[in-house]
């Protein structure tokens, strides 16, 4: 034990003499842990909110019975199942609008609500009997989250009005409820949503509470059982978003580990004489390895704690953006405050330790097998480098082969990311080989001694710098890839919006009466050339939520609606109720092409329609189909006829908007003109990528740190190479300038290599990952301006990283340089 203590003390003394190296190690570990934990914290927070949201209406913790075909179930089925021993509880869900705020209304049945159902007035929860009685008995209660109460600008006890003269029961705050949701008694919900005797689904309680009759015996094939742990709609919809975040977190983690690897490797090399001396003094190989392990795990634990705290700060910084993205894109409510669980801390610190061990594995194995006497190897570094380059080149080839394999047979989002990972790793591993080749060619062309030396020296430096350069390459490539994707998306999105939003004004009336009044009013306005009803309904296809849009037969759509594929007679077939339009992502999910047919279940029965056309529907996680207005109203009879758009000359828009606003008191949620709608859409779009951009910047920052730390640690060990040149008359300034030029040249070469790699990454993101994650394929554009900008940023980062070592070299005391000759290393 004491021996271990002494060994450890001896090893640790190295860090005291090399604080920058120690800082490098810690920065690497902290950066790796921080970004990873930050992303995990965001993901966990979001998932918890989905759980919370899902719990009240099923999913997550509870099994669920959902209609196999229809939209709702008769409530008699609930009693029938209960009588057959099924511990089910009915839920009716729908959307309502009150005070200009859209809410998800959930009707629950508290007497049968299973224990795990979540924040509803369950018997088990902290709601007192008085509250339960108040909830059950007229006038009942409307439970909302505190945030929803604020959004409604209401107080507890208020009874918000609904469109058709109805009012919600008095509001009551339930702290653990998810925002944007209102929970009422199921009887109330049936009245408010006008679904007498209907329920949306059944939550299934614990399965150990007595025997049950087989489901098919009770309900035939009208029900589908969704086992617990299945993803909720929100989880499914947002999954790809979180996979994206996780991928970025993982990338940052890997980049951070590059730093750790180089710091540990360097420390190991520098401590070789010490370790040999200790081994010669009787420290066993096992003891040495144990001491190294203790040192490493200690550092990793400390860095893990700091990394977790930093991760928390990063998450807190990013969460508002993420929350806005999730809300804008998916309607998912995520509270803006982070709640952290112990598991998160353990995971973060665990990742730090595991990462440190992985990065140090090579050094540890070397320490275990350390020969006592090192034989001199002239040109040892060169042999070693050659071996290492060969090995890396082989690995790069294997990875490139793997990438091709994944591209050929892989499927799914994970395969998409695996493809990206394989491509990037292959490129990273190939980078030193390419640089060595370039330097070799450069040395041949060099005509002065000094430049020749510079090339040779660069090659020697390559082993030490290559990890940092690889990190830079990866960070740049990802930046280029993501930047290109975002720009491509922006370009397509803007064009798509122009086509999609052809009408000048969009109106959603509060109720049918107001809709009729508005239609009557605009009929008197000569500037309005067309009033196009745009009804909407919701349905489910293959278990997923799908929006149904109604189309009027009008040139607005025939001439403008964006299409990817269509049958020649699309618009006539659509008008006559023979065909439907389908969004790209739904078509991909269902594996349908234009001309195929689809069986559709509606409240008024099933019908089969031809897929007449497929259109891009960017930014919409739900599937979407379009049918003629006549067909929509015939099959979704309770779809409100309150949405319509107006065609008129653009310059007449402001006047008409003002007139409509003042006459019908329509707020922006109910009346919006084309320009504002486009603006809002672009805002949501921009937010979606705000997080990606932030993480991107973080990654680039970590890469710059990696470069800086590598250069700093290299600086000290390069004296023996530089001192002879100085002795031969090359000034320190000249030496420093040469060193800077070499670093910049390597960085530039790396940045240039990053361009094709980045474009490849962009292609993967657009053509593989996006298609899998979101269901749409975007056209691929290259933006040279952006590339130039990124190269400039990379060079600036390299310059910044090289500045300090260069400055140090140019101001180095001649005595230090002379000392190289005095004590033969």
């Amino acid at each position, binding site marked *: 034990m004491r021996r271990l203590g002494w060994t450890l003390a001896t090893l640790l003394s190295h860090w005291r003499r090399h604080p920058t190296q120690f800082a490098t190690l810690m920065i690497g570990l902290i950066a790796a842990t921080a970004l990873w934990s930050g992303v995990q914290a965001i993901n966990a927070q979001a998932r918890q909110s989905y759980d919370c949201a899902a719990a009240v209406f099923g999913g997550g913790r509870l099994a669920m019975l959902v209609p196999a075909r229809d939209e709702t179930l008769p*409530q*008699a089925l*609930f*009693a*029938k199942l*209960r*009588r*057959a*021993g099924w*511990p089910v509880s009915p839920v009716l869900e729908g959307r309502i609008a009150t005070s200009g705020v859209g809410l998800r209304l959930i009707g629950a*049945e508290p*007497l*049968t609500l299973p224990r795990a159902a979540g924040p509803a007035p369950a*018997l*088990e*929860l*902290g*709601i*007192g*009997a*008085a509250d*339960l*009685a108040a909830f*059950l*008995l*007229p006038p009942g209660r409307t439970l909302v989250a505190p945030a929803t109460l604020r959004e409604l600008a209401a107080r507890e006890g208020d009874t918000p009005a609904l469109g058709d003269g109805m009012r919600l029961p008095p509001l009551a705050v339930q702290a653990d409820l998810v925002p944007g949701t209102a929970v009422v*008694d*199921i*009887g109330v919900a*049936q009245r408010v949503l006008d679904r*007498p*005797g209907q329920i949306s689904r059944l939550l299934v309680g614990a399965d*150990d*509470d*007595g*025997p049950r009759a087989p489901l098919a015996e009770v309900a035939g094939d009208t029900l589908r059982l969704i086992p617990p742990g299945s993803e909720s709609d929100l989880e499914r919809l947002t999954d790809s978003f979180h996979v994206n975040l996780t991928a970025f977190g993982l990338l940052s983690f890997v980049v951070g580990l590059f730093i750790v690897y180089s710091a540990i490797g360097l420390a190991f090399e520098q401590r070789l004489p010490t370790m040999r001396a200790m081994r010669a003094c009787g420290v066993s190989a096992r003891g040495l390895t144990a001491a190294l392990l203790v040192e490493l795990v200690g550092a990793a634990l400390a860095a893990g704690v700091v990394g977790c705290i930093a991760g928390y700060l990063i998450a807190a910084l990013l969460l508002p953006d993420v929350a806005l993205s999730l809300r804008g894109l998916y309607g998912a409510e995520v509270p803006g405050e982070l709640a952290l669980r112990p598991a998160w801390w353990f995971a973060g610190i665990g990742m730090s330790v595991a990462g440190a061990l992985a990065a140090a594995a090579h050094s540890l194995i070397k320490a275990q097998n350390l020969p006592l006497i090192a034989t001199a190897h002239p040109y040892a570094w060169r042999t070693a480098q050659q071996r290492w380059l060969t090995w890396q080149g082989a690995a790069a080839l294997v990875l490139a082969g793997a990438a091709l394999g994944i591209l050929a047979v892989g499927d799914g989002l994970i395969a998409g990311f695996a493809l990206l990972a394989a491509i990037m790793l292959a490129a990273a591993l190939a980078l030193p080989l390419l640089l060595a080749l370039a330097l070799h060619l450069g040395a041949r062309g060099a005509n002065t001694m000094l430049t020749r030396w510079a090339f040779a020296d660069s090659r020697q430096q390559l082993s030490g710098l290559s990890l940092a350069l690889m990190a830079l390459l990866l960070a740049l490539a990802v930046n280029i890839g993501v930047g290109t994707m975002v720009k491509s998306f922006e370009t397509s999105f803007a064009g798509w919006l122009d086509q999609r939003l052809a009408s000048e004004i969009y109106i959603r009336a509060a109720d049918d009466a107001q809709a009729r009044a508005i239609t009557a009013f605009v009929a008197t306005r000569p500037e309005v050339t067309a009033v196009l009803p745009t009804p909407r309904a919701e349905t489910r296809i293959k278990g997923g939520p799908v929006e149904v849009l109604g189309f009027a037969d009008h040139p607005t759509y025939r001439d403008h609606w964006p299409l990817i594929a269509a049958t020649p007679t699309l618009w006539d077939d659509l008008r006559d109720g023979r065909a439907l339009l389908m969004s790209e992502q739904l078509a991909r999910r269902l594996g349908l092409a234009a001309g195929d047919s689809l069986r559709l279940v509606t409240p008024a029965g099933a019908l089969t329609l031809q897929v007449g056309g497929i259109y891009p529907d960017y930014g919409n996680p739900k599937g979407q189909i379009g049918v003629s207005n006549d067909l929509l109203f015939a099959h979704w009879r309770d779809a409100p006829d309150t949405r319509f758009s107006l065609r008129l000359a653009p310059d007449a828009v402001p006047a008409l908007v003002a007139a409509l606003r003042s006459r019908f008191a329509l707020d922006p949620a109910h009346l919006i003109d084309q320009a504002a709608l486009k603006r809002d859409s672009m805002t949501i779009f921009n937010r979606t990528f705000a997080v990606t951009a932030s993480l991107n910047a973080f990654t680039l920052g970590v890469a710059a740190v990696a470069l800086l730390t590598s250069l700093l640690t290299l600086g000290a060990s390069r004296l023996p190479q530089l001192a002879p040149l100085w002795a031969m008359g090359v000034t320190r300034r000249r030496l420093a300038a040469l060193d800077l030029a070499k670093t910049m040249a390597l960085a530039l070469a790396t940045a240039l290599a990053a361009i094709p790699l980045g474009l490849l990454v962009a292609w993967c993101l657009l053509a593989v990952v996006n298609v899998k994650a979101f269901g749409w394929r975007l056209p691929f554009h290259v933006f040279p301006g952006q590339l130039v900008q990124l190269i400039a940023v990379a060079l600036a980062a390299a310059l910044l990283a090289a500045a300090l070592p260069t400055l140090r070299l140019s101001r180095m005391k001649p005595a230090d340089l002379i000392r190289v000759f005095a004590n033969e290393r």
Partner: protein
Amino acid sequence: MNAEMSRRALLRLAALALAGGASSPLRAQGYAGLGQDAAGFARVVPGVALTFPRDHGPHPGFRIEWWYLTANLAGDDKAAYGVQWTLFRQAAMPGPQRDGFDSQQVWMAHAAATSATAHRFAERFARGGVGQAGVEATPFHAFIDAWEMRAGADTDPRTLAPLTVSAAAKDFAYTLNLAATRPLVLQGEAGYSRKSDRGQASYYYSQPYFTAEGSLSLDGRRVAVRGQAWLDREWSSQPLAADQNGWDWFSLHLSDDVKLMLFRLRHADGRHFHSGNWIDRDGSHPLPPDGIALTPAAISRVAGRDIPTAWQVAVPARGLSIETAPLNAQSYMATRFPYWEGPIRFRGTHEGQGYLEMTGY
């Protein structure tokens, strides 16, 4: 004086305080205004003849009502068992009956199975109006979820027999066939059961003469069982006030012919109130309160409480002096409102079995 009324009313009142728990202030003010007067609900008045089968069914105009069965059984393994099956109805508000989930009727049920070493129980809740729970008079059928008490084609409304009663939960299940040849026993004045000190009353009849046979599964072990059972039916609109802090209630099968019901209400001021009813071939004979002696004989530690699970019971006027012992001292119903209810045996001047229920400990 109708103590039966008090017992069951207090139990169901407290239990229907749902999540409120035993210490809930709601017991004082009552669930959904239950502690207030009966305004709006049907009133219990003397001189109303109970009519069967109609009165086997629910009386939704009254505030509270129950169907309450206990059975003392012997298994083919020679072991003793007890079974409880209870269905409560409460109208949460007066007025016209409303349909579907708007129904003001709330149903609650308790079921339990007890052996010398195990006591298993379960509870169910339901709303009226949607078919999850309810009672039909003809043919008689009381149900909540998969638990039910059901008449056969040949059921005689005057004996309410034969019946089949069943319940199943996580770790127990039973199905019993109940038979009886004696007619129902109308309690009090032809079924009008008065509470003299408060002027409150209920409609109340019993069938204490059931014989039972069937099967019982307890912790996965199945036995054939037979024995005796006791059914109580009661409905009212006026539950009691809340100055009692608990009660101890006995239903005893003294012989095939003679049944005895006894209880004491424990008042906060220590003046316990006793009541009882001696039932034989000639009908029911209320016992004078001062002619009943109920004395705890042994205390058991049950669910962290001290509960008297053995008793000295004496009714000198009828020459009865017995000592009761529980089949399982841990017969605790840890339902939302917890209480002790389980089978007992007694010996002394009489020997036999019965059920004991104790609340408020």
